[in-house]
């Protein structure tokens, strides 16, 4: 399966989706002008991955900041992951970032996937 490897920019996150090496990560800042357009290839990739996933998938979110339009798309990403067996979300937040911690908790209440919380 193709690898998605996008460098982060000042308004888009770094994204690494690599089935072979079992690395799935979205990190950095997400405030693109058109969040639906930005996330569509990610959603397509996850849906394709779901056809033949690894036995276990640990998906990392390590976001510094995201805007509200991105939050809707992050929920779409989580909903796509919800369809796949044995997925765990690793939600990272900066140790003094209560808002990012709370955002992770809220997402965890909206989907049926186990979340692990870590600070960085």
């Amino acid at each position, binding site marked *: 399966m193709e690898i998605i490897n996008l460098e982060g920019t000042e308004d888009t996150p770094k994204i690494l989706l690599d089935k072979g090496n079992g690395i799935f990560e979205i990190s950095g800042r997400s405030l693109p*002008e058109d969040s639906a357009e930005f996330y569509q290839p990610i959603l397509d990739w996850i849906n394709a991955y779901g056809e033949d996933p690894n036995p276990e998938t640990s998906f990392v979110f390590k976001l*510094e900041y995201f805007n*509200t*339009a991105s939050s809707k798309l992050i929920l779409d990403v989580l909903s796509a992951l919800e369809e796949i067996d044995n997925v765990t979300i690793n939600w990272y937040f900066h140790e003094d970032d209560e*808002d990012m911690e709370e955002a992770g908790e809220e997402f965890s209440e*909206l989907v049926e996937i186990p979340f692990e919380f870590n600070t960085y």
Partner: protein
Amino acid sequence: MLSRNLILVYEGEFTQEITKSVLAMAERNMDSMGEESSIKRKVFNVMVECLQNIVKHSDDFNPLSAKRNAAIFIIGKEDDRYVVTSGNPVDTDAANSLKIRIDEINGLDKEGLKKMYKDIIKTNHLSNKGGAGLGFVDMARKSGQKLEYDFEDMGEGFHFFSITTTILRF
């Protein structure tokens, strides 16, 4: 006496590129003042929602009248707070629905805002402008303060809508 400083005032065309520049300048300014990262993130958050609101709605108005496209963004700092204000022209229908929406948000406590956020994110689809309908709720949640707003009559069915969010530093 409280001292009040303007960090940045911008008036004119709003685009994603300008949003990024404004954010970078305000961020550098807060960095140079040694602001705490938790406060910086909240201010950044509120700035993004304000700026992207203006970008999304900047083509709603009569393109023949440049005056009506004039939007404004201000960030100021007092001893104990940051104040973020944005303003843009809206028509009467938009003014009425904005008033209802912000009053509803201001009537909610922390738990009420959290519930509203979750209800909207679960059920709403992105608008054709790419908005999630979450911006004001998020500004109220991140700031922990009521949103202040004003509508100034511009004539010919237009109002200048301004919204101010306060982020306390302590």
